[in-house]
């Protein structure tokens, strides 16, 4: 009887999911309630978790709770620590959820709400969660080895080297792109700039408190820090209203670029307890609070989604970024559906803390579902604003025009009515001088979220506070990614350099610390700089580059996973990882090809460079602008080379893996699996 009711409940949930998905897919004309999005996502995720993840756990991975995990066998009270599954779920989710699932869906909203929402839900269930879950399992069975180590052992030495290079490359591009998102959110905004600047002394204060006053008391220190930051958000208004102070904190894109580069260098070279760690604590608490508030806000307000299911920009001529739905929607959504970067977390700290193999299902598969849900909420927030406003905020001046009246006319001519007064009023009510041409996703998401929050608490009066709270929240955890990524990148460079000259690899030798910090900051700083000076706003070139590199890393992870599963003899179910891998290879290769060779100058790096070169040759560029244009030409060609190198790396890895698979399947070679030997657990299931 119990079984019957269980089947009835899950069948009911599946029907609700299907109905909600059909409603958002087939709805035309009138705005649609966000409730349908929440229902479609939540019910689909529940069904996917109950059925698909259980199938993967039982059939593909055959999780074995009688087997001791690394946390049990190597328990050292520090790295290998058996941890409660819900606490570890929280750790894992906090580690994987970054700005990607917020910014990606916001940018992809230019196609309309439908393509992005469907990919967020389906991509997470069939690709992203599968990758996180399987890599976590593989790492647990190998004492918590990293993706690079597993690639080296299970695929080939070259495969391991490629995986390591891919990680460094994605790190550099990622840091450059997320820094660009901050610059676009803060430029000409004294309120936002002050609030973010205030987080630096607050973090330093917390660092000193946690190091010297109450060592390790993270909770109390973070609560104090959060209170100070909330005060800084409010105080930002006084700064913006003060004629003297607002001038100090009104910075141009280039000034912010150099400020962030200097900050990144300092965060990488300073002791970790002073700035990086306390900022991370603050970021984790505010991130959890903001995501919870957004979910509650959407459920309470149930806003209407005003963006149509499909916009005219499915033709590839979108103002936010150029390119058709296939492959650019998938590249743009990135982390909310599948993120290669997650495989680094799944093969990092998490496998060393898991108590039982069966917990990998909740932590690997479940945490990614949660991240995807954040992506769906970001999509709702972005699509709940008037489409005209969305396009006005996210389109560069070169496309819509620099003057507000001209820009409003351009946006209206696309079929999304907008007046310059609407934008001026909106900017005024959120406490900004202007909201035009703020590409990058952060300001439009902040407007969307602030509108939802203010409908719940405070009304119109608090709109500006909410807007700056969201900007601070986005910028705070982007800076955390920047700090932590720069530091890890520094270690990678020191490790590589140490192979050539040993002293360079010493992590406590200051000349090596300074040089490697300068190298990593210089690398992502260059991408940031080129994004800021890019005439098309930077996001058009750099976000797809980031998406390609992130999805390529996911393809690397799935190649490694497929190879391991083949060696384990799971040929019958190999499609579970093989299909998402093939899909990722197809979309990344297509996107790479289009980004390099497309004849449309807004898509192809080379054609854009050639078009600019032709303009110089024809004397159409003023003499004063020639040097700047030549720099843009160089940057476009550099981006083409970077894309080609990334695509080349995955092709080499794929060829290596295919050779392995052929040898295994034809029984030419006995598969050698590098799992740690079976040791029975001493713990009962409930431990």
């Amino acid at each position, binding site marked *: 009887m119990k079984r019957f009711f269980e089947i009835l409940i899950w069948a009911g949930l599946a029907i609700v999911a299907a109905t909600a998905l059909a409603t958002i897919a087939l709805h035309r004309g009138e705005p649609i309630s966000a409730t349908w999005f929440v229902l479609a996502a939540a019910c689909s995720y529940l069904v996917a978790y109950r059925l698909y993840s259980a199938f993967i756990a039982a059939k593909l991975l055959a999780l074995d709770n009688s087997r001791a995990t690394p946390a049990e066998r190597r328990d050292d009270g520090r790295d290998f620590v058996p941890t409660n599954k819900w606490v570890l779920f929280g750790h894992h989710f906090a580690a994987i959820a*970054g700005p990607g699932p917020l910014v990606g869906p916001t940018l992809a909203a230019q196609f309309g709400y439908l393509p992005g929402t469907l990919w967020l839900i389906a991509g997470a269930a069939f690709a992203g969660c599968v990758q996180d879950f399987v890599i976590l399992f593989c790492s647990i069975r190998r004492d918590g080895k990293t993706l690079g180590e597993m690639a080296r052992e299970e695929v080939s030495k070259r495969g391991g080297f490629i995986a390591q290079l891919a990680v460094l490359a994605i790190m550099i591009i990622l840091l450059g792109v997320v820094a660009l998102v901050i610059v676009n959110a803060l430029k000409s905004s004294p309120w936002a700039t002050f609030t973010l600047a205030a987080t630096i002394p607050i973090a330093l204060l917390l660092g000193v408190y946690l190091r010297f006053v109450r060592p390790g008391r993270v909770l109390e220190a973070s609560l104090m820090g959060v209170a100070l930051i909330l005060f800084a958000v409010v105080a930002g208004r006084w700064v913006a209203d003060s004629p003297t102070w607002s001038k100090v904190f009104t910075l141009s894109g280039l000034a912010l670029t150099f400020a962030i580069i200097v900050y990144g260098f300092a965060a990488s070279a300073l002791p970790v307890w002073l700035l990086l760690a306390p900022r991370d*604590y603050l970021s984790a608490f505010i991130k959890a609070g903001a995501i919870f508030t957004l979910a509650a806000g959407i459920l309470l307000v149930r806003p209407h989604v005003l963006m149509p299911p499909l916009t005219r920009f499915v033709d590839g001529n979108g103002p936010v970024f150029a390119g058709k739905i296939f492959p650019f929607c998938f590249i743009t959504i990135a982390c909310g559906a599948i993120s290669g970067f997650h495989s680094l977390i799944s093969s990092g700290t998490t496998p060393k803390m898991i108590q039982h193999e069966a917990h990998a299902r909740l932590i690997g598969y479940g945490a990614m579902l949660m991240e995807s849900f954040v992506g769906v909420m970001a999509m709702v927030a972005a699509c709940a604003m008037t489409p005209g406003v969305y396009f006005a905020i996210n389109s560069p001046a070169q496309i819509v025009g620099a003057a507000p009246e001209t820009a409003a006319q351009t946006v209206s001519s696309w079929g999304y009515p907008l007046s310059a007064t609407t934008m001026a009023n909106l900017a005024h009510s959120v406490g900004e001088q202007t909201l035009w041409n703020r590409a990058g996703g952060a300001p439009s998401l902040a407007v969307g979220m602030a509108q939802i929050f203010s409908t719940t608490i405070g009304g119109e009066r608090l709109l500006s506070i909410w807007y700056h709270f969201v900007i601070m929240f986005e910028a705070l955890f982007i800076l*955390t990614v920047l700090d932590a990524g720069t530091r890890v990148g520094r270690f990678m460079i020191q490790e590589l350099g140490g192979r050539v000259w040993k002293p360079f690899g010493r992590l406590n030798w200051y000349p090596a610390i300074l040089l490697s910090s300068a190298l990593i900051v210089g690398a992502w700083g260059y991408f940031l700089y080129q994004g800021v000076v890019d005439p098309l706003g930077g996001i058009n070139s750099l976000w797809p580059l980031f998406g390609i590199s992130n999805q390529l890393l996911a393809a690397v992870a799935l190649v490694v996973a497929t190879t391991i599963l083949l060696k384990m003899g799971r040929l019958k179910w190999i499609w579970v990882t093989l299909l998402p891998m093939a899909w990722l290879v197809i979309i990344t290769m297509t996107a790479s090809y289009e980004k390099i060779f497309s004849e449309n100058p807004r898509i192809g790096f080379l054609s854009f460079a050639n078009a600019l070169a032709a303009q110089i040759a024809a004397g159409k560029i003023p003499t004063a602008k020639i040097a700047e244009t030549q720099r843009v030409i160089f940057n476009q060609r550099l981006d083409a080379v970077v894309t080609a190198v990334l695509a080349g790396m995955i092709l080499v890895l794929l060829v290596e893996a295919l050779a392995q698979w052929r040898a295994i399947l034809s029984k030419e070679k006995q598969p050698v699996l590098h799992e740690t030997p079976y040791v029975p657990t001493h713990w009962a299931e409930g431990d």
Partner: protein
Amino acid sequence: MDRAWSSTKRGLSNLWQGLREWCGDAAYERYRLYAKRTGQNPIQSPTEFYVDQLNKKYSRPNRCC
């Protein structure tokens, strides 16, 4: 009524403990328990342990995009 109160108390206590574990407040206590259990000596001071843990944590990718 008593049962409801005691299960609420237990739930809140678990939640509090989970929060302390999640944010790292309980890390040093756990380390001390481990050191006591295994007879490890000498053990690190709270400051040494805190700095050591941070240096390890931030030497590998631990925050995603």
